[in-house]
């Protein structure tokens, strides 16, 4: 009986693409590849926000889907998406620039931006669910050692709640990164995964992928493995 190999897609931000911050062999992608022993496709881009993907999906959805399906989706992989932390960091900068003084404005701005994030996140979840038809696991936003920790934790709470609500609505699953990145040395700086954190994340992805694999058809990998990263 031929070996079955998992196929995994990592999509999103620098949680999955931390090659600027750690040696290549210790990146999250390579560690997932090493643990999974299957095909790992990195489509994550350092710095990308949910909103930027949502805009891309609105403008170039057909093109993107054709490219993805032609190059990568000849079989059904398990997909993992990590998005949201850059949206928080952008929003934090925006709030400081806006220099809001009244608490009413703060609440209204928080509420409005949470709705904006929800709409963008929903576009991404819908894309993976309806367009790509992939069983996809969406990661929550982990903790960060930013300077303004009160502001971060409030926005993080709001955005993580969005992630839970939207993925639940689309019958997709989540992976709680706050349960994985629990130690200081899980981070290489205030916001990026270290080699140690990457290894823990890779193990969690493997565990979840095996669970997903029991629900989707088994895939026999034929021919050379396709690996590596691409920016979209």
């Amino acid at each position: 009986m031929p070996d079955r190999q998992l196929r995994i897609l990592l999509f999103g931000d620098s949680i999955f693409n931390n090659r600027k911050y750690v040696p290549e062999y210790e990146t999250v992608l390579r560690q997932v590849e090493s643990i999974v022993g299957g095909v790992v496709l990195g489509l994550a881009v350092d710095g990308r926000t949910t909103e930027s993907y949502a805009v891309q999906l609105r403008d170039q959805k057909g093109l993107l889907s054709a490219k993805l399906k032609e190059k990568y989706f000849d079989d059904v992989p398990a997909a993992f998406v990590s998005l949201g932390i850059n949206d928080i960091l952008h929003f934090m900068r925006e709030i400081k620039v806006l220099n809001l003084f009244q608490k009413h404005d703060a609440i209204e701005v928080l509420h409005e931006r949470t709705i904006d994030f929800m709409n963008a996140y929903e576009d991404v979840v819908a894309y993976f669910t309806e367009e790509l038809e992939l069983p996809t696991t969406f990661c929550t936003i982990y903790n960060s050692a930013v300077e303004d920790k009160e502001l971060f934790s409030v926005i993080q709470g709001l955005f993580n709640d969005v992630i839970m609500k939207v993925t639940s609505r689309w019958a997709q699953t989540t992976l709680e990164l706050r349960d994985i990145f629990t130690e200081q040395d899980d981070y290489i700086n205030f916001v990026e995964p270290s080699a140690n954190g990457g290894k823990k994340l890779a193990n969690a992805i493997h565990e979840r992928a095996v669970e997903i694999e029991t629900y989707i058809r088994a895939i026999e990998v034929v021919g050379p493995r396709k690996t590596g990263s691409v920016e979209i």
Partner: protein
Amino acid sequence: MNKHIVIAGDSIFDNGAYVPGEKDVFQQLKDLAEGQAEVTSLAVDGSVTEDVLTQITRLPSNTTHLFISSGGNDALRQVGLLSQSVQSVAEAMLILSTSQEQFRAQYRKLIARIQLITNTKTVVCTIYHPNSEAEKQSVMDIGVSLFNDVIVEETNKARIPVLDIRGIFLNREDYANEIEPSSIGGQKLAAAIFSVSS
């Protein structure tokens, strides 16, 4: 009949005062479970998470399923805090994050207490979004979301299942007023509880 379902918490389960002449959630659940399970309510209208800790001390020894709804009244208190005069965004964020952490501390106590219960499947509910007036909706939504994130994060760590009742209370008719379940919403909630217990 070995199954014994217990509901504890706040007025999401103890909504009798808001549905006069109609069945409350407890009665609706008893009707559904008739002949199949015993049902007990420990829930008390107005309870905050601290009160639920006391309720659970009265848990019947033969409880097989425990459902807890807690956090909504804690969130309502937060709305009062946000009505206070604050001078800056930073101050507003400090109030929100402090409220969130205080709720986390209370909820962790509840989870620690739940983990001491044996031979019982415990499920906790999220907090639904109130059917508020527009001017209060932003504040309420933020409070509910922040507290729900605490519930989801902490229960996930403790491997306690969550019933997301936001997926149940979707229409205006599901509410008796701004924050209480109507008999229509209550019937959907009772059905969800009974289904999870089956």
